[in-house]
């Protein structure tokens, strides 16, 4: 019996069938690869055109140069706009993370009257299109005779970032095992020590993620900014405005640099985090 099996010729699968089987087994990976390609085509394009020796309008490939990277602030206003974006982003991130985290703890850790109303109030800004948020804030500032500019923009950014922070941090709090806090209390930690030694360290990755999300939302925001910034230029606004007469290649340099910077930061953060868990 066993001899017969040994003697049987090893069946050869035709190449076509093998390819078909490989595709079948890896279909979802192939799909993911295509999706990533779709995501990165414009990023790659932006990166490539940051090396374009284009002069003013960066529309057509004219030749390779490193000049744009050597002198990223070469185009007028671009670095000023970037600086504004970073400043607004940082301030908005700090405030929205603090306010949002407090709300997340209130909703995620306490039972109180008005909890579902609170949830609704958090959900509303997310369900309101940016253009409505921006336009309504602008009308308020006009009524209050506050001129659009830096601080109105910061305020507008905090408004739409808070909800995202709350949702992110709340998810993290919800995934926390309440037994851990009880164990801390059981081991002589009072309410504050329990929060400081157990709850906060365990929720921290969620807060960091929320802050990162808030910063990227703020940094990349155009619509709300456009309504509330008046004459102040941010990086996205700079691009939008210069799109009409041609975007300088320096904008591509900054966009690409931000991309790589963020990538590096996140990966370093991930590695550090992994080491810490270990």
């Amino acid at each position: 019996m066993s001899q017969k099996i040994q003697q049987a010729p090893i069946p050869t699968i035709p190449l076509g069938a093998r390819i078909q089987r490989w595709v079948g087994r890896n279909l979802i990976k192939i799909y993911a690869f295509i999706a990533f390609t779709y995501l990165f085509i414009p990023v790659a394009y932006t990166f490539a055109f940051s090396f374009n020796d284009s002069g003013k309008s960066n529309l057509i490939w004219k030749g390779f140069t490193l000049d744009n990277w050597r002198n990223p602030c070469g185009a007028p206003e671009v670095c000023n706009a970037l600086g504004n974006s970073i400043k607004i982003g940082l301030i908005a991130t700090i405030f929205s993370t603090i306010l949002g985290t407090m709300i997340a703890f209130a909703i995620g850790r306490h039972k109180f009257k008005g909890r579902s109303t609170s949830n609704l109030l958090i959900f509303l800004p997310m369900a309101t299109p940016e253009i409505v948020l921006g336009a309504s804030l602008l009308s308020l500032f006009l009524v209050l005779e506050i001129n659009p500019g830096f601080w109105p923009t910061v305020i507008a950014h905090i408004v739409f970032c808070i909800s995202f922070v709350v949702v992110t941090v709340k998810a993290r709090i919800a995934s926390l095992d309440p037994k851990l806090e009880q164990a801390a209390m059981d081991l002589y930690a009072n309410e504050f020590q329990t929060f400081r030694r157990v709850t906060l360290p365990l929720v921290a990755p969620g807060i960091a993620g929320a802050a990162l999300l808030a910063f990227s939302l703020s940094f990349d925001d155009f619509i709300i900014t456009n309504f509330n910034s008046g004459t102040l230029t941010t990086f996205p606004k700079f691009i939008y405005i210069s799109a009409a007469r041609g975007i300088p290649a320096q904008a591509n340099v900054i966009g690409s640099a931000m991309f790589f910077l963020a990538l590096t930061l996140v990966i370093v953060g991930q590695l550090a985090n992994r080491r810490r868990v270990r």
Partner: protein
Amino acid sequence: MTKASIEARGDLRLTRLTKSYGDFTAVDDLSLTIPKGSFFALLGPSGCGKTTTLRMIAGLEEPTAGSIYLGETDITTTKPYQRPINTVFQNYALFPHLTIFENIAFGLRRRGKSDVKEAVEKVLNLVELPHLAQRKPTQLSGGQQQRIALARAIVNRPALLLLDEPLGALDLKLRRQMQIELKWIQKEVGLTFVHVTHDQEEAMTMADTIAVMNEGQIEQMGSPADLYDNPETAYVANFLGQSNLIKGTISGNDGDSQIVDLFGQKISLPKSRSHAVDNSTYAGIRPEKFRISLLETPVKGNVLTGGRIEDVSYIGVSTQYQVEMPWGQELMVFEQNDDGVAPFKKGDAVNISWEPAFTFGLRGDEDATAGSEVAPEVLDEE
């Protein structure tokens, strides 16, 4: 009050402790005393309120009514961190962001103890895991995590250690090994242990005192031998091991014994072991206390005649017989395979006898199947 409570020592006393969730009563008017230094087991089926009781003792749940004393100190409303009580949680609840060392040091640091390092190392040696001090909890096996959870609690030298099914997640071999270790550690450090389990064998082998809990109440409390030999309720008789309960009527007295009529046959039962409240009773006998004999063989003690062997199962160390009695009930008999007497065959007509002192008497109005592993009613419903 705050400082005093943490220094409290002595017996743990629960008086009329009650916990309700809405109109459901999880723990119902529970009173008991756990002597200092004892190994106390709380035994009962799933959902009977064991965890709830422990959580109230630990201060993680507020009682609806009743009070908790440790020695002379009332700790009913004391915060968990102000009680000299530590818990080994059902799923360990080790802090994932801290190393094993810091997990164990947690309680000591919160109380500002000075010799943290020394104490942690000592307890790590006690649980035989000193080499794991710098690891994170996720890098430990289930059994190792369990021992760390234990170390994290006992390092604080609490007056009372609460263990909520700490061995539930372990395989049988590790479980047996940990039972021995736990018992040893309890003797070694001399703490009061309150151990929750629904494994009756575990409770029997480890505890000085067992309380059998059912539907939020204590059915009976006593030493393992007490509970086994002289159960007071059908529930305890069936939950701890197996019992034969035969319906009967108390027909008279004979000195220290009662005469009980079991379907026309008279047996005797020590008065001290009778828990009946009126004439109607159940006579209870553990299966291994029975002796089987052929009709012609003379026997002593209590005898029931007219049995017929219905089923024989040989299980090595003993043989298990089902004997059908004239009134239709099947009795379970375990016979040691130690003497040379040939085992009985299916269909043999036999007598059943036993030492009168092994008989226990229950109230006649009880449900004789309460606490059995497979309640017949449940089967009928299918």
